[in-house]
């Protein structure tokens, strides 16, 4: 069985993560309940004839994937697997609004075509002329993790030598308003917002795209290897410790083997308790958080994955993502845990490729 290495990354987020060194230019938000992506200029990635119809999610996906492929020095992956919670929701809204406002008349196909969930993966394939395996998973907070699991199996079983994977989600005005109505998004009245000490319900909502090249070969520029991935549909808070313990044991790991644990805390007072048992379990371990930088969206965990990759590659844990101020000399084995509103739990173990 082959090992699955991460050999290229590309990340577009609410921070300037696309064109800078890892977290060298970040700003901390405490007053906005919706954050928008810091998008690059797309002209160098996408021909003008194609860009005119593209949704934001497609553009972010193409730019982030181009960067990941370039870094891995790969022209054409064997497979493309994406995860997205909501797909290109802006075009879905546009088309639906047109249906309702014009009583099903004078509708045009472009926004309908873009609303299909696999439009990002499909258009990346179209641009690269990649005729290989092309999947899109859409399951809330495990959309990206399912893509990762699928890719890992294919790389390990030698069905694919390399796979491009990514998580992408975009915001859209109507959906944001709906999420505010039901307090999925934090209320204005609850400012300032904090992820470290959650004091209100809901999350700071955002968007982004993080793409990765996975290969069966270790290279000089490898970030890490993907050791294990687990997905669990739902858990009670008191079941989390057992879930993590069983998962680690199944991979011959003890909590003390973990050099850093990357947690998906998003500042929602109702659900961040899910991370409490992890904090106890890994009391002596450096704890990392990231959603205070990325905001929350269905595939925000792919931003966390990007953070973990960089910590391992750089062997350095930046202060801004450190939750308990602990540091280590070496970051060999890193565990990621994420969940959203008690559902879609995921665990990932990454290992330093150089060990």
């Amino acid at each position, binding site marked *: 069985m082959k090992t699955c290495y991460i050999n290229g990354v590309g990340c577009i987020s609410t921070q300037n993560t696309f064109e800078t060194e890892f977290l060298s230019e970040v700003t901390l938000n405490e007053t906005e309940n919706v954050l928008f992506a810091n998008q690059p200029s797309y002209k160098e990635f996408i021909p003008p004839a194609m860009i005119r119809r593209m949704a934001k999610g497609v553009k972010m996906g193409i730019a982030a994937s181009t960067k990941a492929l370039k870094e891995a020095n790969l022209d054409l992956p064997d497979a493309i697997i994406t995860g997205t919670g909501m797909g290109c929701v802006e075009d879905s809204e546009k088309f639906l609004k047109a249906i309702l406002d014009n009583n*099903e008349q004078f509708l045009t196909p472009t926004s309908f075509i873009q609303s299909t969930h696999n439009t990002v993966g499909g258009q990346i394939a179209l641009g690269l002329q990649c*005729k290989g395996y092309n999947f899109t998973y859409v399951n809330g907070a495990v959309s990206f993790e399912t893509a990762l699991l699928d890719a890992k199996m294919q790389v390990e079983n030698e069905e694919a030598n390399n796979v491009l994977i990514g998580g992408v989600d975009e915001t859209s005005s109507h959906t944001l308003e709906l999420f505010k109505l039901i307090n999925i998004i934090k209320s204005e009245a609850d400012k300032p917002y904090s992820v470290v000490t959650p004091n209100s319900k809901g999350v700071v909502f955002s968007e982004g795209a993080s793409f990765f090249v996975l290969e069966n070969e270790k290279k000089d520029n490898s970030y890490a290897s993907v050791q294990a991935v687990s997905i669990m549909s739902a858990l009670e808070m008191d079941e989390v410790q057992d879930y993590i313990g069983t998962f680690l044991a199944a991979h011959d790991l003890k909590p003390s083997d973990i050099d850093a644990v990357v947690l998906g805390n998003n500042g929602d007072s109702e659900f961040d308790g899910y991370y409490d048992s992890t904090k106890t379990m890994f009391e002596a371990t450096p704890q990392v958080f990231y959603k205070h930088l990325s905001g929350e969206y269905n595939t925000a965990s792919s931003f966390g994955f990007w953070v973990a990759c960089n910590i391992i590659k750089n062997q350095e844990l930046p202060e801004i993502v450190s939750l308990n101020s602990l540091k280590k000399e070496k970051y060999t084995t890193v565990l990621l845990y994420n969940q959203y509103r008690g559902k879609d739990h995921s665990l990932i173990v990454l290992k330093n490729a150089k060990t």
Partner: protein
Amino acid sequence: MKVAITGMGIISSIGNNVEANYHALVNGKTGISTIENFETVHKDVIKVGEIKLTNQQLAQQLGLDSDNNFSRTAMLGAIAAQQAVEHAGIQHINEYRTGLISATSVGGMDMTEKYYYEYFENEACRKYINSHDGGDSTHKIAEHLGLKGLVTTVSTACSSAANAIMMGARLIQSGQLDRVIVGGTDALAKFTINGFKTLMILSDTYNTPFDHNRKGLNLGEAAAFLVLESDDVVQKENKKVLAYVSGFGNANDAYHQTASSENGEGAFLAMQKALKIANLKPSDIDYINAHGTATPNNDLSEGRAILRIFEENVPEFSSTKAFTGHTLAAAAAIEAVYSVLALQNNSIFPNLNFNTPMEEFDLVPQTTLKEKTIHHVLSNSFGFGGNCSTVIFSKK
């Protein structure tokens, strides 16, 4: 390595369970009709494969409380998945490492389009805001089954359910899971009706797959699920195996966002991969359940791809979409059930409404029910974004 199918369930416009679907297939009884469950200005100019049960009736069948927030997609899925689990004789769903992989394209769009503006005025309907995304329908099905484990959703347009089957089989083959419930569900929605209308590929009459004068597709709604189990579980539980998933392949046409390439490259590659994984020659295939949507583009492209694979020896083929309409993300799941029924009953189901062969090639589908010993069925499903999938089902 083949993966055993030990249970299946289905609800479609031709029947509310496996037996009813089989009965309609052998009797040539179509489910295409005029839309009744919701209002649309296109009511009189399109036909659909609609399940003639209201949301209230579906909720009642599932025993849901009045404060439930199931979309129609979730309800159809729960009904079909429950049938599949019962059919497989599963008593304790979490006894083995069990997963659920569903497929959907519209998810809870049926509720979103109903309450899009009303959400701001009426608090009572807000429970559906969280039912919009595709993953929600899958979670609802999992909760209905009491399943806790790997739950995820595939959405690759009209090939989605084939890809859910593929991922399920892969998870069992790699030893990650012992049992996976795989399939797909999609309800009819104004969103998709109008979407396909803008692409000008909706027929104004009964769809006629592979016919020279085909005018486009009829949309349909359906859900179907299969229970896949590892050999270990099959042996330990002494399970009756209905059929096996013996091969699968997915490829991208990389040609156009919605249309298929002229020579059916993606379809060709998908069939080629599936045959290779199944370790079968084209001549081993006894029946092709074609994608056959009856759009001018699909049937020509798929026909050419079939000819490239099978050359002079194309086995009997038919599209069952004249029965059910095109049920989008659920299509490959309902056609998986039909493929297993074909294997079990040694029957090829007719391609209804066919009259005139296409002039581009010499391909005539099977138009009447035919009895024939069937060992291997190849089922095609293709979707937007160039997504092309093939699954091969085998008796042994």
